C-alpha cells in the first residue's frame, strides 16, 4: 500500500494488519463494502495499534481520521477514550470537537456514550462544566426528543446530583412551553421531582422492588410539591386536553404519593360532559379520551356500584374515541365486568 500512512515516517515502525474479511478462503463473504483505499489503510493501522495497545499522539490522530470517515465505528471511539485518559489530554478541546460532531450526526449512539465516559472523570470534571446544559439545549433545538441526549441528561443529573438545581426544571419548563406534547421533557420532569435519588434508589418508580402497597411509592411525600405538580399538570391539560403526557404524569404523581385517582375525578369530568334531558343521559360531549380513561379507572376503583359507569366509559373509548385499541378496551371491560361481557349486551350508550 502506498497511502498516507505507509509514506509517513511517523508510522514507519508499525506493521499494518490488513483486513481479513474471509474472502481469502475462496468463499465470498456477505454484505461486503467496497471501502475506499484511505479507509482500508487507516483501519489496517488501527488494528495494528490496537493489537499492541499503543497509547500515543499518533494513535489519537488516527482515531480522528477513522471517525471522520465512519463515526458509527464503535471500536475506534472506545480506543480513543483510552488514549485520551492515558495521555492525560486536555478534554476541553475534545468537547469542542465533540460538540461539532454531535450537531452533525444527530442519531449516533457512540458520540453520547463517549461524552458520558469523558464527563464521568471526576479528575477532569469535579463539577458540571458551565456550558454543558447550554449545549444540550442547542441539541434540543435540533430535535427536542432526542433519546440519546435525554438519556445523557438523566445521567448528568444523577452524576452531579442536579435534581434540585433550578436550571433543570427551568429547561423543562422552557421546552414544555415550546411544545406541551414533548413527552421526553415530561419524563425528565417526573424524574427530577419523583425519580430515584442516590439515597433512595427506587423511590417513586412504579414496580420497584418493594412489596405492595409501598411499591412505587415515595418513602417521604412532600405534599406541597405534589399539589404544585398536579396544578402544573392541570394547567397543561387545559391547553391541549387530548395530549397524553400530562395525564400520564399526573397518574405517576398520584401513585408516587399514594393518593387515589379520584382526586382528579371532578377535573376529568370537565372534559366528559353528559347531556341530560328529562333526567336521562342522551349524549356525551368528550374533549379528551384520556379523561374518559381516567374516569373509567376511577369508577373501577370505586367498586361494584360504579362498574356500569366504568363500562360505559370503556365503551365510549372502544366505539368512538380510541377505536384502534378496541381489543384492549374490550379486555378491560372483561376484567372489570365479566358478567356484562358474557351477556353480550348492546354496547352503544
Amino acid at each position: 500500500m502506498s497511502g498516507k500512512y505507509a509514506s509517513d515516517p511517523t508510522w514507519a515502525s508499525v506493521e499494518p494488519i490488513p483486513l481479513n474479511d474471509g474472502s481469502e478462503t475462496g468463499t465470498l463473504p456477505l454484505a461486503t463494502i467496497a471501502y475506499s483505499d484511505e479507509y482500508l489503510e487507516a483501519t489496517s493501522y488501527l488494528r495494528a495499534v490496537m493489537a499492541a495497545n499503543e497509547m500515543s499522539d499518533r494513535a489519537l490522530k488516527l482515531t480522528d481520521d477513522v471517525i471522520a470517515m465512519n463515526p458509527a465505528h464503535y471500536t475506534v471511539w472506545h480506543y480513543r477514550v483510552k488514549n485520551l485518559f492515558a495521555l492525560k489530554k486536555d478534554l476541553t478541546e475534545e468537547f469542542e470537537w465533540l460538540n461539532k460532531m454531535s450537531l452533525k450526526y444527530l442519531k449516533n449512539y457512540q458520540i453520547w456514550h463517549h461524552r458520558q465516559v469523558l464527563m464521568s472523570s471526576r479528575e477532569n470534571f469535579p463539577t458540571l462544566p458551565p456550558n454543558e446544559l447550554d449545549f444540550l439545549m442547542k441539541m434540543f433545538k435540533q430535535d427536542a426528543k432526542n433519546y440519546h441526549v435525554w438519556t445523557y441528561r438523566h445521567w448528568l443529573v444523577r452524576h452531579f446530583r442536579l435534581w434540585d438545581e433550578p436550571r433543570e426544571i427551568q429547561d423543562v419548563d422552557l421546552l414544555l412551553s415550546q411544545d406541551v406534547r414533548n413527552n421526553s421533557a415530561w419524563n425528565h420532569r417526573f424524574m427530577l421531582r419523583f425519580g430515584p435519588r442516590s439515597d433512595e434508589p427506587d423511590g417513586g418508580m412504579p414496580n420497584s422492588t418493594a412489596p405492595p402497597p409501598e411499591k412505587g411509592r415515595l418513602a417521604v411525600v412532600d405534599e406541597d410539591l405534589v399539589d404544585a405538580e398536579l396544578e402544573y399538570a392541570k394547567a397543561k391539560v387545559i391547553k391541549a386536553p387530548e395530549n397524553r403526557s400530562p395525564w400520564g404524569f399526573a397518574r405517576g404523581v398520584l401513585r408516587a404519593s399514594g393518593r387515589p385517582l379520584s382526586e382528579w375525578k371532578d377535573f376529568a369530568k370537565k372534559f366528559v360532559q353528559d347531556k341530560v334531558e328529562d333526567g336521562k343521559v342522551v349524549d356525551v360531549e368528550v374533549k379528551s379520551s384520556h379523561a374518559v380513561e381516567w374516569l373509567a379507572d376511577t369508577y373501577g376503583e370505586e367498586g361494584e356500584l360504579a362498574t356500569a359507569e366504568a363500562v360505559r366509559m370503556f365503551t365510549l373509548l372502544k366505539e368512538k374515541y380510541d377505536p384502534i385499541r378496541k381489543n384492549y378496551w374490550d379486555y378491560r371491560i372483561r376484567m372489570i365486568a365479566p358478567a356484562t361481557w358474557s351477556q353480550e349486551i348492546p354496547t352503544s350508550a
Partner: protein
Amino acid sequence: MSETQVHPAVPALFKELPIIQDALTTETTNLQEETVNKCLPFLKGIHSSQKGPFNQFGVPALNRDDHIAYLYDSLEDYPGSFVALDASRPWMVYWALAGLALLGEDISQFRERVITSFRPMQNPTGGFGGGHGQLSHCAPTYAAVLSLAMVGGEEAFQLIDRKAMWRWLGRLKQPDGGFRVSEGGEEDVRGAYCAMVLLSLLDLPLTLPPDAEARKHGFETFTSGLSDYLSRCQTFEGGISGNPGSEAHGAYAFCALACLCILGEPEATISSFWVGGCWPLIQSAINGTQPATAPKQTSTGNLYSREGLTRYILACCQGKHGGLRDKPGKHPDSYHTCYTLTGLSTTQYHHYHTDASASSRGDFSSAFSWKSLPVTSSDNQGSDLSVFDEKDRLAALHPLYVIPHQAAENMRIWIDVEYFRGGGQFTQETFSDHLPSR
C-alpha cells in the same frame, strides 16, 4: 394523486383522523399531521405508486418476489459510500436471512458464506465484533449467533467459541444486575436481552466466571439481580426504558420483556405496553402456560389491532421496488424489511408458550416451549380481523429469538447432544474447570 376510488372495504377508522383534535398545534402535532397525511392515501389504497392488486379487504398484496430480490441483493457488495455500515455487517446478514426465512426462502444455501463472513469477526477473548479487529459487542454477537443458527449445521455451530463467550459475558455483567453492550460500552436493556439470548441458546453455564467483577458485588450467576434491574427500567407511564430513570421506549420494552420470558417469568412483572413485537409476549403472559397437546386458540384474544398493523404494513411500508420501510417518504432498508415482515408475521399467528420444551435440560427450558398456530380469515369474528390473503402468509418466527423455531431448537439440541456425548471441546466439563469451587 390518482382519481382511483377508495376501496369500499377500507373502514372509516383507517381513512379518517381521530375524532378529537386539540386546537393548539405544536411541533409534535405538525410532525404527526405530516406523517398521517403521507399515510392516508396509502391506507385508502389511492396513492399513485400503489399498483395493486387489492384484496377483498382493500389491502394491497405483499410484493413477495420484489422483497425476496431486495433481500438477496442486500447480501451482496455495497459501494464505498456505505462505509457507515462497516460495524453493522453482522446485522445486515441477520436482517436479510431472517427476512428471507419469513418469506419462505431456503437460507441454508448461505451456510458457507455465513461461516466465512463471521469467522474473522470472532475475538479469541470471546464474542463477535462488527468486523475484523473490532471490539466484541453484544449486538454483532447476537446477529452472528442467530445467523449461524439460521443457516444451521455442525460447522456453523462449532464456529462459536462458547467458553470464551461465557467468560466475555461475565465481564459485561454489572453490579446493578444489568449488562454492558461491550467492555467499556454503555449499559442498557439491549445488553441484558442479548446476554440472555446467548446464554440460553448456547446453553452456557449460568454461574458467573471466577474473574467476573460482578462477583465482588455478591452475584453468583448471570441472572442474579436481573429481574430487579429490569423492573427498575419500568417508568411511571407503565412502559420500559433503556436504563433505570430514562424514558419509556418500545424497542427497549421488547428487550426487557423477551429477557423476562427467557428467564421463565413472563407472568411476574408484566403490566401494560404499547409496541408490536411485545404483544405475543404480553398476551401469552396473560393467558398463562398452555398444554402443548391441546392449546386454547385464544383466551384473551388479541390486545392490539391486528387489522391495523396488517393494513399499515401492507399499504404504507412496501417500497415501490422491493424492500419495506418505516413509513411513506422513507427509503426501504434491510432493518425495516426484516422487522416490518416480522410484525406482519406476528399478525398471522397465535403465539403461546407450553408446558413442553424442546430442550430437556438446562435453566432456560421455558424459552424453548413456544409454539405458534396460523390465524386465518376464517377465524374472523367481531372486529379482530385477518385482512391478508393466504398467499401473503409468512413463516412464523420464535417470539424471543426472532429466528425460525426450528433453527433455535436445532442449535440448542445440538449443544445438548454434545453435552451428553461428553467429549469434544463444547462440553460442560470444559467450563467446569473454570468454575470456582463451592
